[in-house]
């Protein structure tokens, strides 16, 4: 796939997907909580843009609705809810540094290489042209999961979960030109409900153990030792 042979729109799709990958790395190492939410909003906006661009080049109008939905939900509504949550929990100045940022970032890069190697054998005709965006999406999913593993704050873990979902959405949009509209609506509302439920849970957790550090959740078990 020579880059020069693609149309400008398809090049744009590649560029935006690469930027989505960059935002997931930015989420991985971002220390300030509020900045994390902002980067997540940008990631949502970029995914919405990719959807719109694919709608333009592949001429599938229902993807416009999908793009608008993604933009409204992922770039505006959910970040606003998280922002409000953070304010109510008085954590808007919270800074959480990773233990070994270099090692984590290099591991993330290794995940990108790994997802590329995994996607290489894909040979089905209709997927071959966008095989490489598939690799990027898989990388976004894996990096999102890595984020959930290395971060200790519950809010950033939720953001990791959401960015994982972003990766899946990107794969669906770029590789198969979107899912049936019903499925997309269902997934979108699922994510919204999940965000609401998380908000409710955070209050409960915060009141029980006075912190949102997930490592301290083992205080809830009867036999767990109290390690601070």
């Amino acid at each position, binding site marked *: 796939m020579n880059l020069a042979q693609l149309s400008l729109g398809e090049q744009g799709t590649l560029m935006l997907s690469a930027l989505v990958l960059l935002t997931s790395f930015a989420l991985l190492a971002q220390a300030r909580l509020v900045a994390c939410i902002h980067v997540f909003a940008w990631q949502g906006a970029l995914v919405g843009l990719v959807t719109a661009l694919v709608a333009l080049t592949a001429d599938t109008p229902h993807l416009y609705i999908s793009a608008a939905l993604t933009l409204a939900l992922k770039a505006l509504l959910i970040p606003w809810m998280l922002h409000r949550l953070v304010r109510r929990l008085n954590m808007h100045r919270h800074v959480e540094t990773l233990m070994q940022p270099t090692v984590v970032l290099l591991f993330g890069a290794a995940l990108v*290489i790994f997802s*590329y*190697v995994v996607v*290489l054998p894909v040979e089905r005709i209709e997927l071959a042209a966008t095989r490489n965006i598939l690799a990027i999406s898989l990388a976004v999913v894996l990096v999102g999961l890595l984020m959930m593993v290395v971060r200790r704050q519950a809010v950033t873990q939720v953001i990791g979960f959401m960015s994982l979902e972003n990766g899946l959405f990107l794969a669906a949009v770029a590789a198969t030109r979107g899912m049936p509209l019903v499925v997309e609506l269902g997934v979108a509302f699922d994510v919204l409900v999940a965000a609401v439920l998380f908000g409710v849970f955070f209050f409960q957790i915060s009141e029980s153990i006075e912190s949102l550090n997930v490592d301290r959740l083992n205080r809830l078990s009867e036999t767990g030792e109290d390690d601070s």
Partner: protein
Amino acid sequence: MLALAELAVLAALGSSLLSLGASHSAAALRWGAFPLLGLTGLCAIVAGLGALMAPEPFTAQLPLGLPWLPWQLRLDALGGFFLALIGLIVTTVSVYGPGYVREFEHGQASLPVLGVFTGLFVAGMLLVVLADDAFMFMVSWELMSVSSYFLVAFQHEHAANRRAGFLYLLMAHIGGLSILLGYGVMAAFAGSFDFEAMREATLPTTWASIAFALAFFGFGMKAGLVPLHAWLPEAHPVAPSHISALMSGVMLKVAVYGFVRVSLDLVGAIQPAWGVIVLIVGSISALLGVLYALMQHDLKRLLAYHSVENIGIIFIGLGLTMVFLSTGHPLLGAVALVAALYHTLNHAVFKSLLFLGAGAVLQQAHERDMERMGGLARRMPWTGLFFLIGCISISALPPFNGFVSEWLTFQAALQTWALESGPLRTLIPIAAAMLALTGALAAACFVKVYGVAFLGQARSRPVRRAREAPLGMRIAQGTLALMCLLLGVFPTTLVHLLDGVGGQLLGTHLPQATARGWLWLTPVSPDTASYAAPVVLLGLILTWGLGSWILRRGERRAVHRCDPWDCGFAPPDARMQYTATAFSMPIRRIFQGLFIVREGVEPEAHTGEPRYQLQVRDRAWGLFYAPVAVVVRESARRITRIQTGNIRVYLGYTLATLLVLLWLIL
């Protein structure tokens, strides 16, 4: 040509013999043994260059060895290159030696030992390069290892030196055993120990991989790849400096020669996985070598760790060669091989230069610790100048030779776009980035070395009183410095010669390497990359000269002296300078996960004054060597149980053995 090479070996053995007379008069050593070594070197250079330029290899058979396994000799382009390399360094060391050994004449050490084993060491190395069958190779290898052990343990009054010698001998023999097993595997399929037969034979892939692994382990241990490098920083510093130059500059290269001979010539078809492993091990060695070097403040130990780094760089080049050859790009493989061999020669030249300089400093200032040196460039101007050239060369800066080989290695790595495999296309740039990091850290280390040891003010009294080294030592260093410059400014000549090695070994020439004439080095093609080293040197000299001339005319020439800036406080004395430890502190903090660092302020034993202590240790000991040592000790303890001391048990063993043997005859 082979006759010249044999003459070289005989001259080395002769110097050995003559040194026996040194117990009566030191002049025997100075005027007999060392000139004979010089003759050895010159013959080796001529023989090597002749073999490099000859179209066909030279072969011969010696009546030595066992009756049914006579020793086969072969001098081809690869062997010729290494022969010339050995000859060059041996010649310079023989000029350096007479001045240097003067300091041993009045001490406890015995001069004959030094002379005898130096000659045997050189003879052993020459024979390894000439060997064409496994038997002769192993005998020469042993000769090389054992004679260098005696040289390492030369000043055995200190316990640390004895320990270093023991470790060195142990690891040399483990490596030698591994090489022998590798040859055994290949000989099994070839039907004989001849290299000629091994070349013809084809091994099945699994056995070829086993042979390669054994050879890589053995030669890697001798060359000093991480994690098999532990003996290097112990053994090289304790040997006399000209021997350190021979060991670091030449013996490690003989190990590289062995590896190249086995993997590119004898073992047959190369697998891509081998190349990847060599590449990874080379990159890790390079990076860890330079990081540990940065933490040292003993000058010779620092140089020894740098040898680990440069061997890593050579193996990066060799790894690239193997990757390109195994994926069907013989031209690129030849380019990478040229890069690796160029770096081999460069390292031999500048590492020897640096060790000879360190020896001069050690002889004149009696100091090996950089934290006590300073300002030596004004006391020893010639040594300072030549050492500076060595520092610039090893930091891979234009227009000297270190830069050319790094440039060639990068050019080889940059041809990754021709490969088809995606994972390889991501791995090689990462290895190249590690190489870039290594090069930059090496430059940082040598700024530290030169800045702390030669610039600034002297930090201790003996250093303040140091004088310039004797003439012979200066001439030797000057020759090597000149070689550094020549190899940097005329790379096309050497690339043209190395092309012959690629042609004979791989069957591929580099048609475009000098396509635009002697001035332009274009390893792959003129469109891909080109470097005109003489023009760069000319440009540097012109701009420097022009600038000097324009700015220094008339009344503005005068330069006035004053005190350095002291911020308005007390005048800065020698102890307020930056120390070597302080210089490398930021890098130590950044990479601290890779070291075991123990830092603290403790009261000194006698006076009670607080003293800052810093200990940086190699992680390889804990991770790799200690477990091996523990396993060996435990299993040895278990095995000792068969020695019960009871005579009836021993008679029982005899009975059991007899029964087994009788049963076998059945």
